[in-house]
């Protein structure tokens, strides 16, 4: 009896937490998303599904843009994080934990603060651009802040550890005897990587990609701080609808639409190249 109850008891604290702070707000939001009204006269539940269609009509392009930025940031994170994680896992030797700490170090500083500090680095006449302009390398009107590049770079920077850590974990667990075996079988370094290391690290890549793509697509801080007039992401729209316009129904409907898109995306992704293949590869 005790044995059967134990797992439930262990789940209880976390479960209650989720119930109170995730499930209930979610249901309230779902309810809000179908209401109509304003903050002074109150909101009425009228099951107004048009909140959803109107949101998509008005802000469809912001959804597309957010997913696109999320994708770009994920790819950039992957390209940057994989070599770094591999180097730490294979080459760092006893100093592994030091390098891991270095990778995580930016996380000890607030997210917003880190992003704002980028503004100093990338300022039109700041240390980087100002210097390059002074040398005549860049034309006077050149700027980085307020461009797609700045926003995607910010996203990449902020979510890099989410990509690096799972990849590192996957690579770190890799049995070195596999590499020896590959070498014994006359595999070149490239072949070893492509046929042994890469497939075995795919679960890490899979996890890292989801953990990067989902928050990056829903982010609004980077677009707000580093972006310009053409870089508004859906997160910024939801923020404005909620805080500035106090249009809670529209904000809720947009949030749910974003959640649905991301869930569907993750599901398709898992189906296409996700869990089964990854685990298959790991088994091989």
């Amino acid at each position, binding site marked *: 009896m005790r044995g059967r109850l134990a797992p439930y008891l262990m789940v209880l604290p976390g479960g209650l937490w989720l119930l109170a702070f995730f499930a209930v707000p979610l249901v309230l939001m779902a309810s809000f998303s179908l209401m109509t009204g304003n903050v002074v006269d109150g909101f009425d539940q009228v099951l107004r599904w048009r909140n959803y269609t109107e949101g998509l009509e*008005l802000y469809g392009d912001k959804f597309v843009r957010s997913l696109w930025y999320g994708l770009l940031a994920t790819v950039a994170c992957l390209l940057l994080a994989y070599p770094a994680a591999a180097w730490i896992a294979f080459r760092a030797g006893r100093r592994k934990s030091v390098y891991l700490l270095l990778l995580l170090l930016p996380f000890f500083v607030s997210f917003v603060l880190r992003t704002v500090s980028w503004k100093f680095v990338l300022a*039109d006449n700041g240390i980087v651009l100002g210097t390059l302009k002074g040398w005549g390398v860049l034309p006077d009107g050149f700027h980085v802040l307020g461009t797609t590049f700045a926003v995607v770079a910010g996203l990449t920077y902020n979510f890099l550890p989410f990509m690096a850590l799972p990849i590192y974990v996957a690579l770190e667990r890799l049995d070195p005897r596999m590499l020896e075996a590959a070498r014994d079988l006359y595999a070149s370094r490239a072949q070893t990587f492509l046929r042994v290391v890469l497939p075995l690290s795919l679960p890490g890549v899979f996890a890292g990609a989801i953990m990067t793509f989902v928050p990056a697509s829903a982010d609004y801080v980077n677009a707000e701080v580093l972006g310009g007039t053409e870089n*508004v992401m859906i997160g910024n729209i939801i923020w404005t609808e909620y805080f*500035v316009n106090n249009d809670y129904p529209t904000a809720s409907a947009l949030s749910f639409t974003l959640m649905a898109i991301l869930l569907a995306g993750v599901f398709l992704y898992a189906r296409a190249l996700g869990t089964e293949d990854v685990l298959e590869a790991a088994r091989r």
Partner: protein
Amino acid sequence: MKHDPLLRRGMTHRRDFLRLVGLGGLGLAAAACGVGGQGGGEKVTASEAAEFWRGKSQNGRLSWANWVGYVEDDRATLKNFTKATGIEVDYKEVINETSEWFGKINEPLRAGQSIGFDLMVITNGIQLEQCRRLGYLAPLDHSRLPNFAANVGASFKDPAYDPGNTFTVPYMSGITGIAYNTKYVKEPITSWSDLLNPKYKGKIGMMGDSQELGSAGMFLTGADPEKSTPADWEKAAAKLREQRPLVRKYYFQDYIEAVTKGDVWLTMAWSGDAYSLAGPEVEFVIPEEGGTIWTDNLCIPRTAENPVDALKMIDYLCDPEVNAPLTEFVTYITPVPGTKDVLRRKADAASGEEKAELTEFLENPLVYPAEADLARLRRYRTLSQEEKEQYQKIFTPIVQDS
């Protein structure tokens, strides 16, 4: 790996999720009937006001929510207040933007809960109107505000946005105009239409707040923001859309840093910021078409735990001797004209550089504007709830790029 833990975990997840949704259904039942409105809160009778203050007494502490840079860095005014009254002040710079602040306090105040502050500063405009109508603000007991009655200038009393100062007392006023960096802009900026000059493409900053942006659009199209009609709004919005490709960014707060560093060369700006926070090469100008004057107001949330202490602070700030050093620091327009005499006396007593600075300060039209300047200034349009929605539907898409 023999089996598929990820997939299996996914299954239980899903079942758990459904269960959570089932329980959350209780919440849905509660929320399904909608959220009631509480409009009409701005109509308060004298007996209701007296009822609010009955039995309330001074508690010796006070927490105050304010904007950044709105009292001296060393908090001298607050320390003097504690010395004079024995009331401890917990002062926090937590307000960055009125709409965001409203978003934070709306739910607790609707539920009748404390927001943790006894005194807050809200700009006249959409959110203040909402707070008034929703009954979020304590009606002020003017019998305990002798300094307000005696010292606040007539033009700051009984404003249209709060008739009879039922809920608010002005803290500081400011002007929205244009700030520009003389290092990059070599010609004097005089007009809102300078913000349409293609020469400055990508170097122009505008404000993201719909009331500020809308007013700028109306100055650009020759309409009077205060008396504007929806047709004027449409015309202004069309002009602003035309301007959009030239704009670097629609700022909510950090424009002053951008113009100081040269990320933008000219930008919509608030007078005090341009004077006290920007670098020396940044100039502020009230364009010839006019500028917007707004007022930040002291008010007490209805759920305040120490309202009497807050009232005491409001009255304290209306004393010219107290307000003068504060005004000297924040460099906005003070509602207490007596501060000018206080500062003039201080200037007369001073010498050298300090005297020169004080004299310059007293002549600064952004702190003590002349009648001619004041005549060019307009307030935000007062908007009913329906008008507000229409107004925001017209102007926020410009910022949101939709």
